[in-house]
């Protein structure tokens, strides 16, 4: 099993050809967001980056990402100087579109590099598994939909994440893993959700002796401390010296948003809202009090300020407590068994916990689970069984991001292509587990997979035929997110079992 074809590079070439053809496809407001950031970082002094507010899409990523935009803006004047003018709101000449789309493709090379490092880091006899997993990440429909159509730079950011996970594999590169992750946090703070796993793992495996808790490695601790503090100082130091930290905090953590994001990420709160809706007609019979204000609220379900008619309100504190609790559980195991696979499992479970219980979660954050999970999904068939519903649900939940007719075939056909290819390939190669399987979810997951097809048809065509255009638009969204939430929760429960029994 030494031959690994098609190679990562070959797939990257064909995928790049496809992505270039997608240049004129639909792009979301995120395109304008990033254009605006290019303009801000290129034309304003650093002190004003986080104060500029001509556009409603103010800079709300950490400083490294701003610097990254500044770097990208260096070549932009040769393409179309107009894109770098802060006042040119919604500027999208074809040169600008080509340029920005091209930067996404080019910066994705980081992901390619990280994946090839990942394949090399795996022992020879399992290398083909790692190769298939890498291909599945490289060709992920999530990245295609979010980065190359919707428009973001996740390929680059997840490349850094994978790089840091790969570096965590060997004791000798643990320090670099910590540094990379610290840098990643300064690119995009969403990765804070995973930071507890890193913290516990680095503390246990690098700062203490992996074999015994009572032998602290002082030198390692100092090295790691200096490096991490250094990275953060590099990112935030200048702003601290100008006394802008509070402004940065307001920009990076806008806590005024609601529990559910506009498109209902498929998490526990989506199921909670769904349950709340379902209870409304039953409430009089069960004698439950109904919050009339919530019932009549026009924005309900669509815009952030979700309020519930029957079930109790959920506050930020609740979500934090739940997220923290469900992150803590896997970390206890990581503390006791600090090996690489447990670490990746813990990262995945931290992603799960924050995605399922977090406050104002974007559906895009599902990549936070899928991508680390892909790295270990082929460990054996039990892992793969837990991964399967996630792969379906996670990607289906991204469908509402693209709602234009021309892009419908891309999201559906590409996702179906990817699911057939990789679920089949995974199924062919995943090794039989050493332990007997604990849960018998095969029938359930088959049923789950088949439900996806009528659901997608209903949400894309059927709903409009039945209710007409523009009526009950929340309904398909709610169905998709509840359906996906079921899959994500199911796979989470499955993976918890696998993780704790491994």
């Amino acid at each position, binding site marked *: 099993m*030494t*031959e690994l*074809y*098609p*190679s990562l590079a*070959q797939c990257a*070439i*064909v995928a790049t*050809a*496809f992505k*270039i*053809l*997608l*240049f*004129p*496809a639909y792009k979301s407001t995120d395109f304008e967001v990033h254009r605006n950031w290019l303009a801000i970082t290129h034309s304003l002094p650093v002190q004003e980056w986080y104060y500029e507010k001509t556009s409603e899409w103010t800079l709300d990523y950490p400083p490294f990402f701003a610097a990254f935009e500044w770097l990208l803006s260096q070549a932009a004047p040769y393409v179309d100087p107009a894109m770098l003018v802060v006042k040119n709101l919604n500027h999208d000449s074809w040169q600008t579109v080509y340029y920005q789309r091209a930067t996404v493709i080019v910066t994705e090379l980081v992901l390619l590099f990280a994946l090839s490092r990942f394949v090399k880091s795996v022992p020879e006899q399992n290398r083909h598994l790692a190769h298939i997993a890498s291909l599945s990440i490289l060709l992920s429909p999530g990245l295609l939909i979010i980065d190359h159509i919707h428009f973001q730079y996740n390929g680059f950011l997840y490349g850094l994440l994978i790089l840091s996970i790969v570096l965590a594999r060997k004791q000798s590169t643990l320090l670099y893993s910590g540094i990379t992750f610290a840098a990643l946090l300064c690119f995009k703070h969403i990765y804070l959700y995973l930071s507890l796993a890193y913290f516990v793992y680095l503390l246990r495996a690098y700062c203490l002796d992996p074999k015994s808790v009572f032998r602290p490695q002082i030198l390692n601790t100092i090295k790691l401390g200096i490096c991490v503090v250094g990275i953060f100082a590099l990112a935030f130091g200048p702003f601290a010296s100008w006394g802008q930290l509070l402004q940065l905090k307001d920009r990076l953590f806008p806590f005024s948003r609601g529990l559910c994001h506009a498109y209902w990420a498929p998490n526990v709160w989506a199921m909670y809202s769904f349950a709340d809706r379902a209870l409304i007609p039953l409430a009089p019979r069960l004698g439950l009090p109904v919050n009339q204000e919530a019932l009549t609220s026009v924005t309900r379900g669509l815009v952030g300020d979700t309020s519930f008619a029957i079930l109790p309100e959920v506050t930020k504190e609740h979500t934090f407590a739940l997220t923290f609790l469900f992150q803590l559980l896997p970390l206890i195991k990581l503390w006791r068994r600090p090996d690489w696979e447990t670490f990746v499992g813990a990262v995945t479970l931290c992603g799960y916990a924050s995605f399922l219980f977090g406050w104002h979660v974007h559906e895009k954050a599902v990549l936070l689970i899928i991508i680390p999970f892909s790295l270990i999904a082929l460990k054996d*068939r039990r892992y793969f*069984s837990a991964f399967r519903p996630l792969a379906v649900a996670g990607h289906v939940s991204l469908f509402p991001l693209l709602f234009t*007719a*021309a892009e419908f*075939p*891309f999201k559906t*056909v*590409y996702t*179906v*292509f990817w699911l*057939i*290819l990789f679920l*089949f*390939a995974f199924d*062919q190669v995943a090794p*039989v587990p050493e332990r007997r*399987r604990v849960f*018998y979810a*095969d029938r359930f997951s088959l049923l789950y997979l088949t439900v996806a097809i009528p659901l997608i048809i209903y949400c894309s065509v059927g709903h409009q035929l039945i209710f007409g255009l523009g009526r009950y638009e929340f309904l398909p969204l709610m169905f998709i997110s509840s359906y996906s939430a079921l899959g994500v929760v199911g796979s989470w429960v499955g993976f918890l079992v696998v993780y704790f029994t491994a």
Partner: protein
Amino acid sequence: MAPPSSYRPRKKRKFPSSYAGSNNSLIAELGGKSSPAFPLVSFLWSARAGVSQWLVLPLVLLAVGLFRWAVSLWGYSGFQVPPMHGDFEAQRHWMEITTHLPMAKWYLYDLQYWGLDYPPLTAYHSWLLGKLGTAIDPSWFALDQSRGLEDPLLKVFMRGTVVASEYLVFIPAVVNFLRRYTRMQNVPVWSASIALVAILLQPATILIDHGHFQYNTVMLGLVVASLDAILAGRMLWACIFFVGALGFKQMALYYAPVLFAFLLGVCIFPKIRILRLLCIALVTLVAFAVLFGPLVIGAIGEEAREILASAPQPPLLQQLPIDLDKHSVLYAVAFQLTQIIHRVFPFARGLFEDKVANAWCAVHTFYKLHRFEASLLQRMSLGATLGSILIPCILIFRHPRASLLLPALSSVAWGFFLFSFQVHEKSVLLPLLPMTLLLAGDGGLSKETRAWVGWANILGTWTMYPLLKRDELRVPYFVMTLLWAYLMGLPPTSLEAYRSRDSSEDSAEPHVLTKLVHICFYLAMIVWHVVEAFVPPPSDKPDLWVVLNVLIGAGGFGLAYLWCVWKLIQQCRKIDQKVAEETQKKNQ
């Protein structure tokens, strides 16, 4: 309780370690390790060990579909070019008139604005799509009101109809044809899958149908279905499909001489079979009758006859020696038929349109052909075309074997493209299709065939560049062509097909002269692109670059024609030799 299904040890099927001949050209043995010979092989590498076709085929069709749809995001012909727009508007306009007008008016209505000039099947196809589109949004096809409409949703609908038509006609036809053809040629399933991807990603067809906007794949698909029927021995079905192809687009005539010669040959050699000949003739006539039936019936109603009686007579009808009552049924029928023929075959137009890479346009550059009378030119072109197709037609007539069809079809189509009257640059799709199908044959993926077929395809796409540039299809042109070249291991991305292998006894490799000529052409194409992009043409010769493109293209196509004829002769000789050997054995 039964153990969960995943505990069952998976069946490990055994496969013969030695493949049949054709796979040798796909696997390069390097230091005891086998590796794919060119990138497309790597993509199907894991399919070589007997992965079910039920898995490979859907994945291939999904993947090539994605590329088609991605190309369709780009511009189309005539976008924002009032007042006439382009092929997109023509097709949309036909949907508009066929859904709103009585059949008698289809070939008469406002001929100056994209009057219907394709044969009846296209008209019926337009009617069907027009009805579908009207059900979604009637404003897309409102009579006269919808001219030049550029609604983005309309674009999605129209693009969708091209993809749907292709997936209903062309793709099933190609898949079935390949299955039968590869089995006949003893080509392993794996090689067949690779050839399928190569054929379905052929850049020229994708760029014209899904970029420029046409429905060529319907006609090409019907031709392939006809070939498939021939392979299956169902000659009558072959006739029906081919009449369908002719009835969709008259350009299928490029293939007609070969099919005629072949079907005639089948009835005469090895022994004369009159009944078969009669059946073929009868079925062809019936198929034509069915094709024109609805339009003829549509012309004999009371109202329809009134319409036709008051319309100007088509020239063909004027030339008829008999005089008919203008209100009679016979007059209506004759009128309708002659009008369709008059519209479909534009004899009155020039020798060639625009700049096209064929012999006439090339000669015209150095020796102006205006000085001759139109009728003389027509006769000249007829003579040259007949001369160029004579040899392949005689060969296929004498050896009516299905395995010879592809080289015969490509050489005849090249002959038509180079010498016939009124050729479009898009017509290059016709010779390219049978030539590309050669990839699926025995040794089709060997370096020699791959080099020639790939070179002809890339050259063909390149000659359409001026057209694609007008449609704002430059990016898809470069992406699709380079991608295909990359997958096939061809220049400009790789010299794999031209590099000699150490153990070169078994697989055919291109001749040294071939290598030289091909490399020169590739270099010329690259240099042309650079010059075209950065050097403005001299002011007194604004078309210089296009003319250069045409000259190089015409030269290359001439070579492609010769290669196809040569292939045909070679294969005929092989067959003759075999027959001779067998008779010798019998005699002994």
